[in-house]
């Protein structure tokens, strides 16, 4: 069954009266900017860095050297950075066909993925060294976590000496798989009439958003859930506060020193989405200071991640670093509240706007 076009609902039926006039025109504009200026460029950038990573891996396999290993490791960090920015989008094509977990299987609390990667390195299986067959294996073996171990884990120095070795070719296949996934995501969002059209034009016959309120709720949901993920799934996975035991080897990308590169990317993604989508236009003049305060908190968090020690084991053992971690925990909570309550409230969404997400 499809909703009949004759049953057209108002674009902004549930918005407060004050906000309705503004939102009817502004919401489609905001959604268009979010798609065209953040989401699509974000996936394209990820695809490009994955392409560069594959090139670096292939060069390393063909001409192993310390320099080429360094280049591949640098390309890995750049791919992590690009993914982390767009990773905050956890809706749409990325959660179809297990793409999200294929790109990043984390956390791996029981070491399941690590054991699988170690096993295949110990007993090479050529089907893991080709993208076409790697994609049918465990999701934990085909993404950034697996490639991190290949490039930085125990025994990775061999990559600088062994020409076309299995470890290198497996790593190149992972890079190729990331390129494949990045390409699929970019293509899904670039497809005319596809999800980009659904996001840009909320309406009664739209397969994703029936009205502007649903669309803007989803957009704000990316920000709130993204901020929650930084606190709950990136920082608290290894540090829950000064009175709790730390687990530095549970930190994302701890092995490659990319923990803060990733969290920095997540925060930059939040700031960039808020800025590029021009969500401030949803607010009247009296409440636009909300955006300024959110930007201030986000920038403070970003600056702090730039000063953090990438050696997580050393960081959690150092009093000054722990104070910085406490700052991140406290201010990430503040960021969540400002996005959810202050910004959500200012655009007419109740504090519980994210409650109805599958319960």
């Amino acid at each position, binding site marked *: 069954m499809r909703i009949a076009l004759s049953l057209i609902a108002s674009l902004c039926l549930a918005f407060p009266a004050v906000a309705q006039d503004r939102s009817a025109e502004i919401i489609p504009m905001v959604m268009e900017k979010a798609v065209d200026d953040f989401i699509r460029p974000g996936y394209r950038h990820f695809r490009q860095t994955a392409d560069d990573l594959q090139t670096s891996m292939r060069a390393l396999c063909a001409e192993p050297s310390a320099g080429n290993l360094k280049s591949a490791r640098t390309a890995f960090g750049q791919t992590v950075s690009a993914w982390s920015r767009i990773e905050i989008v956890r809706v749409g094509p990325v959660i179809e066909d297990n793409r999200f977990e294929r790109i990043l299987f984390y956390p791996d609390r029981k070491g399941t993925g690590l054991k699988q990667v170690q096993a295949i390195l110990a007993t090479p299986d050529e089907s893991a060294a080709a993208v076409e067959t790697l994609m049918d294996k465990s999701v934990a073996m085909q993404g950034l976590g697996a490639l991190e171990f290949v490039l930085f884990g125990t025994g990775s120095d061999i990559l600088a000496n062994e020409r076309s070795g299995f470890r290198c070719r497996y790593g190149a296949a992972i890079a190729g798989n990331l390129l494949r996934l990045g390409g699929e995501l970019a293509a899904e969002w670039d497809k005319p009439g596809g999800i980009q059209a659904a996001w840009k034009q909320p309406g009664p016959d739209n397969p994703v958003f029936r009205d502007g309120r649903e669309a803007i709720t989803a957009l704000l949901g990316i920000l709130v859930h993204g901020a929650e993920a930084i606190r709950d799934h990136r920082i608290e996975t290894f540090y829950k506060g000064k009175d709790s035991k730390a687990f530095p080897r549970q930190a994302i990308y701890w092995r490659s020193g990319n923990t803060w590169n990733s969290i920095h990317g997540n925060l930059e993604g939040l700031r960039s989405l808020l800025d590029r989508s021009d969500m401030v236009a949803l607010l009247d003049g009296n409440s636009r200071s909300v955006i300024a305060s959110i930007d201030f908190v986000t920038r403070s968090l970003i600056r702090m991640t730039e000063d953090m020690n990438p050696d997580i084991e050393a960081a959690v053992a150092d009093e000054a670093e722990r104070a910085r971690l406490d700052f991140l925990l406290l201010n990430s909570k503040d960021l969540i509240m400002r996005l959810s309550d202050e910004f959500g409230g200012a655009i007419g969404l109740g*504090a519980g706007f994210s409650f109805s997400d*599958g319960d």
Partner: protein
Amino acid sequence: MTRSVLIDRRVFVKAAGSAFLAALAPRGALALERAGAVFASGYRAPDGSFGLALLSERGERVAGIDLPGRIHGLGFCPATGKTVAFARRPGTFAVVFDARGTSQPVILTSGENRHFFGHGHFSPDGRLLYASENDFDNNRGVIGLYDARDGFRRICEFPAHGIGTHDMTVSDDGRLLIIANGGIATHPDFGRTKLNLGHMEPSLVIADATTGVLIEKHVLPPSLRQLSTRHLAIGKNGRVWFACQYEGARNDLPPLIGHFGKGEDISFVGLPEDTTIGLANYVGAIAINRQEGLVGVTSPRGGLAVTLDAKTGKVVHEQRIADAAGIAPGAGGFAVSSYGGRFAATQSPVAWDQHIVRLALGR
């Protein structure tokens, strides 16, 4: 996405503070009962903290209890007077307290490698507490059994015979477990991200309450495989009513409410198209007023509360309520709450969670 932090009892008490336990102590509870608390529901306060409130028939707040996290579903046992409130998924704590003031509150946690799905129910005699839980590493729902005579110790678990288990309840005679498997795979490592929207497996199950053995399993047809069967309520004659949330295209109009009896196929209620549109493919809660023969549902996304005649399935009342959240049988139909602070006839500056439990017999 919510916090995946696993809260054990020690951490819970520390986080909630002594005021939490004091508020639930027998003396405090007796005072609450005298004051006429008939509903309980979770809420989020303006400062972002969470709690559980006890409310009067009109929705006036009788007392509030601070909690370290957000709660979701609740259950009440008329035989013992105990109420349970479960953490929202993927939470791991639940609180059992006594509105009659005869025992101390108990905090329980889900088993290792399990988290609560947010719902549960007492056996009619109150000796057992059943809870819907996620065996996340094996992607299957389970029903945890807790012994009320032994401090709500977790004694065993039954399979839920499906994945993405959400609501569950118990037949009036205590012999059957009725389980709503929403069919959506989630894992606490990925927060609340839905991991299998392309191949969901929703189902409704009747299992033996003593053994957990499967008695009936109703799998939805392929055309409705993205219709997540999530919430349950049992009518006076044992008829099971269920409410759904649709994960498919937003401009589809799937049926959202249905019912079945033991040994019967499931039947969907044919709602008027405007009503289905108003429910926005998302029914958040369902309740039954047995005395008045009514079924009530709410949709926060649609901002609508709908009352049906339990015999005919016909709509007898609709009310636009922005962010309509919880619903429970009340005087003259149903008490409805909202994320915006409405509760029955009252308004307060909190966001009510999606469920209400009535703390009394009779309705």
